[in-house]
């Protein structure tokens, strides 16, 4: 399954409708292996829907999504994808460690994996605390920790750094790049442009269509600006003018 030449995710003409309205209008792109790909775009542009389609929990209207060489949602993928939703999905009436131990046993991961991921997201000191008593940022990290359990080949994180202070964000981005260096593919969504510079590759989404797909450098070059926020605005101008 580990074939480095093949993209981790390959999406062709993906269409998704929600509530009778088409929200993704025929997306086609690839996510390369062993890199951190940023999925950027304003809120409501379809990032979460796209992520859910790749994870295989979204009903899609058309197109093909292939993940690690298998159709999205295949049973074989359930052990290979680490997924963290935008709102923290952990049990509020379990401690952080109990949450992680439960998800680890569902994944068939070793029991001490819980302590490893707690360390990685910097939550070791809150391990015994109930989910419901955590701060917003701690809860986000607890939910992120679940996505790191086991040995996922693809980690998909929906807005993992919302509400975190700059120091923690810095640490998490170091962790993401450390994972990528080990060959893990990461797809990380964000609506803040200053995180774009930290990605190896960017996928910019707007109103359910892809606005840009390339490295941060190529995006800067294309738009003739050094600031990614500015680059994003110029891209929008370009498409509305055309």
């Amino acid at each position, binding site marked *: 399954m580990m074939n480095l030449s093949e993209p981790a995710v390959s999406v062709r003409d993906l269409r998704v409708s929600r509530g009778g309205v088409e929200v993704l209008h025929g997306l086609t792109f690839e996510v390369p292996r062993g890199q951190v790909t940023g999925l950027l775009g304003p809120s409501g542009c379809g990032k979460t829907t796209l992520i859910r389609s790749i994870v295989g929990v979204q*009903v899609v209207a058309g197109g093909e999504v292939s993940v690690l060489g298998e159709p999205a949602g295949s049973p074989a993928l359930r052990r290979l994808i680490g997924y963290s939703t935008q709102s923290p*999905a952990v*049990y509020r009436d379990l401690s952080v460690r*109990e949450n992680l131990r439960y*998800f680890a*046993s*569902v994944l068939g991961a070793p029991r001490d994996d819980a302590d490893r991921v707690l360390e990685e997201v910097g939550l070791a000191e809150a391990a015994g605390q109930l989910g419901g008593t955590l701060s917003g940022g701690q809860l986000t990290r607890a939910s992120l920790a679940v996505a790191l359990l086991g040995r996922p080949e693809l980690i998909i994180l929906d807005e993992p750094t919302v509400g975190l202070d700059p120091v923690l964000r810095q640490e998490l981005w170091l962790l993401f790049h450390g994972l990528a260096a080990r060959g893990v593919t990461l797809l990380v969504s964000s609506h803040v442009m200053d995180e774009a510079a930290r990605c190896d590759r960017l996928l910019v989404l707007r109103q359910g269509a892809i606005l840009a797909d390339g490295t941060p450098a190529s995006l800067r070059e294309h738009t003739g600006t050094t600031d990614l926020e500015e680059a994003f605005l110029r891209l929008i101008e370009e498409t509305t003018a055309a």
Partner: protein
Amino acid sequence: MNPSITLATARRILTQLRHDHRTVALMTLVPTLVMILLYYVMDDERSFAQWAPVLLCVFPFLVMFLVTSIATLRERTSGTLERLMAMPLGKLDLLVGYGLAFGLMACAQVALALTVSLTWLGLDLPGSLWPLVLVAVLNALLGTSLGLLCSAFARTEFQAVQLMPVVMIPQILLGGILVPRAQMAALLEWISDVLPMSYAIEAMKDAAMGDDLGGEFWRDILVVAGCVLLALVLGAATLRRRTP
């Protein structure tokens, strides 16, 4: 299904309960307290002996239905269900996990209510005890599995709570507790024939009478057990890995 995931799920649900002392206290003590109340309201040994088994069967059913439907709804709304559906967890792992955890709670509930009834309240059962315990626990499992199934049709906690009277009260009214089933209008008797609770109540009556437990008792037990399994399988069918 994978037994180690099923057991891990049951253990997780029991751990959640362990952190919630008030719910555990309510679940285990309320049936016993209602039993004591019934004893003093009846104020007559014979009526109490007649009504105590009814309560013993209906109560775990009601409580487990409510607790399960709220618990699964919370699983849906908190996003943990979506997370689990993206993991190698079978749908039946989740449902049977709930069944095991709440079934265990039901055993504690029934054990306490029976112990208090048989000792302090002087309940006298003509036959042996185990058939009544069997019916009560099976009823709790029926409540759990129906709760799992019905929670699929509730989007909010308000709806889930309202489903309880919708599903439960007709079953209790038509089950032959208040009016014998044979005396009902034909149409009502037909409806009663397809409701699982009717069989549970018949089995409970046999168990409380202490007569020789013949084929009819076992047929009723099998029907109720079959309904538990059917509700679990239907519940699994309503769980979707992909949602709109």
